[in-house]
């Protein structure tokens, strides 16, 4: 499922025009949009955060007690700084899970509890089945070596070591022999496109290249879980986008479990299979980019996502509606014109027995066919109607929508018609969800 989500973002910008037939019959014509939008499947949980809190300061126990009693973050200030409050997450194997929040929201503290750099004041963190708070320092180090690697905001490279030896550092810690670890590190460097730079020092590289070394170092460690703390935040916007694309590209090949921390909403939406929005130490909402955009949990999230370029996050499936009129290709013109009349539309979508979209029939053509005494509407079908896929981003639905007055048909991967996107729906989806008068949870 995660793979599909990545495909949606990286590869799939295609607009279907000639669907292929498929033997499967009786697919439901219009599945509910949520079914198509759901991205997280039932992969095993790789990382579990259970009611974790972290309080820095003089009296963390007292602060925790008051927080549990319902005190706010500001109210417990005299006892300590509550960086993370009662956070629970389940991060599934193979997904890119983004934790997004402004500075001070507790996201960096949260990620540092995922590999035990800081221990929670309350709650627990589980890597697979291993409880981080139940292991001693030695076991924790072994766990980090085997399971977790991390990419840092300011790269955190050793300035006196070459690029190759920096990338090999986790393997050196693991106790691998020099020749072997250098070979593995060179592979990782090649993966991020840094072959040829092995003997350079970090100070000779640009920021983007340094972070590639940081990424190669994490990849060389070859752990299932990759923690990325604001990994691209220190880079120029253009380099940042390049790195994001590279990360998705690598993820498609490697299928790691990635926890990505960012304050950049667009980055979160671009990378995340699922996103947790943090505010004031609490997790405000967890969901896919589309869920957060179209159904924000509260005012804060709604305001936060107000500025997002929705057309680059939402897909056709999240806004499509049931087509008003659909007629079978084998049906007659009389049936077709009756369907259109009942639906009060001037054109109907034509599908074959497998619900594969064949084209469109207009009322005038149907009436003409009827007048000419045709038994089917075959001759009246206008083919070559531009359809989009369920996974097509709304940004790519505008062009087909402008071509034709008809709603844009949406098809699944087999070319079956699953819904349509009328222009008015498309435009309405671009506006932020108005949540200001409703279910604020503060």
């Amino acid at each position, binding site marked *: 499922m995660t793979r599909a989500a990545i495909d949606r973002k990286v590869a799939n910008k295609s607009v279907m025009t000639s669907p292929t037939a498929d033997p499967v019959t009786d697919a439901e014509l219009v599945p509910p949009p949520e079914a198509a939008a759901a991205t997280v499947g039932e992969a095993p949980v790789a990382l579990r955060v259970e009611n974790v809190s972290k309080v820095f300061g003089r009296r963390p126990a007292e602060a925790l007690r008051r927080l549990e009693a319902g005190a706010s973050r500001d109210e417990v200030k005299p006892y300590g700084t509550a960086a993370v409050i009662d956070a629970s997450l389940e991060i599934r194997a193979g997904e890119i899970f983004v934790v997004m929040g402004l500075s001070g929201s507790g996201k960096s503290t949260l990620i540092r509890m995922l590999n035990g750099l800081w221990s929670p004041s309350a709650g627990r963190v589980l890597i697979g089945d291993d409880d981080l708070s139940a292991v001693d320092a030695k076991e924790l*180090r072994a766990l980090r070596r085997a399971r977790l690697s991390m990419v*840092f905001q300011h790269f955190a*490279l050793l*300035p006196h070591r070459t690029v190759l030896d920096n990338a090999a*550092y986790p393997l050196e*810690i693991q106790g691998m022999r020099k020749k072997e670890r250098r070979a593995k590190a060179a592979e990782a460097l090649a993966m991020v496109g840094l072959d040829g730079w092995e003997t350079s020092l970090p*100070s000779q590289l640009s920021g983007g290249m340094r972070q590639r070394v940081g990424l190669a170092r994490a990849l060389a460690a070859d752990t299932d879980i990759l923690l990325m703390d604001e990994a691209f935040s220190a880079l120029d916007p253009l380099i940042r986008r390049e790195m994001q694309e590279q990360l998705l590209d690598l993820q498609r090949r490697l299928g790691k479990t990635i926890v990505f921390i960012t304050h950049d909403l667009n980055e979160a939406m671009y990378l995340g299979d699922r996103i947790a929005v943090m505010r004031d130490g609490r997790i405000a909402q967890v969901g896919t980019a589309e869920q957060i955009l179209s159904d924000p949990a509260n005012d804060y999230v709604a305001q936060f996502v107000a500025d997002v370029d929705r057309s680059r996050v939402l897909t056709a499936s999240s806004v499509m509606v049931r087509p008003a009129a659909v007629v079978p290709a084998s049906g007659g013109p009389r049936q077709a014109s009756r369907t259109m009349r009942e639906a009060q539309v001037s054109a109907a979508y034509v599908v074959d027995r497998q619900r594969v979209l064949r084209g469109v029939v207009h009322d005038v053509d149907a009436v003409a066919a009827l007048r000419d005494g045709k038994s089917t509407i075959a001759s009246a079908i206008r083919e070559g109607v531009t359809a989009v896929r369920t996974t097509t981003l709304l940004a790519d639905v505008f062009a087909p929508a402008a071509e034709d007055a008809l709603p844009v048909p949406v098809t699944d991967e087999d070319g079956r018609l699953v819904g349509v996107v009328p222009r008015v729906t498309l435009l309405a989806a671009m506006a932020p969800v108005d949540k200001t008068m409703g279910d604020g949870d503060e």
Partner: protein
Amino acid sequence: MSDSTVPRMPLGEWVETGVDWVTETFRPLFGFVKDVLSGAYDVLSELLLAPPFWVVTALLAVIALVAKGWKLALVTVAGFTLVASVDQWDNAMKTLALVILASLIALAIAVPLGIWSARSDTVSTVVKPVLDFMQTMPAFVYLIPTVVIFLTGVVPGIVATVIFALAPGVRFTELGIRQVDAEVVEAGQAFGATPGRILRQVQLPLAMPTIMAGVNQVIMLALSMVVISGMVGADGLGRDVVAALSSVDVGKGFEAGISVVILAIFLDRVTAGLSARTPVAKSLATGLV
């Protein structure tokens, strides 16, 4: 507030009693320390004095060449030839031996203490005021108890010098380690490195330019204190300076003084050169090009 309203507190007497008690109680220990220090000093000064002056000068010039460059090597040759020509060579080598010995001991104490302070806030808060005390106490004052304990000669000079020169070594080491980018240390931790490995492979190399600045300070302070300890009969240039002072002999004073300056230039430039040659300092320098 007049003097009569405040009763006289016998602070000095207390300290005196304390020093006496310490002297009596630890007499065997102090005897051992004295033997070790004077033995080490004898060996070191013999080593420096046994070869002819030009051999030692050539050796020092090579050190200067490696640490800094040919210019410093030239200055070294010229400087130490001048020292020899004003008949201060023996004194200069004795002083150099004292400086080297005292600096090595001071660093052997200061660097681990600095590392410990950097790793523990408790240790840091205890050590800091002690260092402040040691640095602000007038240098001469250290000589008094050391003379009581070790009598006159080279050993009280070395001990007083070690105490006096210790502080910057501790401070710079602690500062250097605390200044190491927290993320780089976290990176070591995140990949499962042990604290010892992080210290050896991350913290010390990254702190090395700062620690070397501390080493430089320790050596310079040691040099100044070694001269002062000429007052308690320590060998070297200090004794001539003190003698020149008591007999108001401007010429001799200047000759001994200029020798101290030449030693100081050599030691300062060499240690500064070495700190610029640490791997981290070098890698940062390449980045600026």
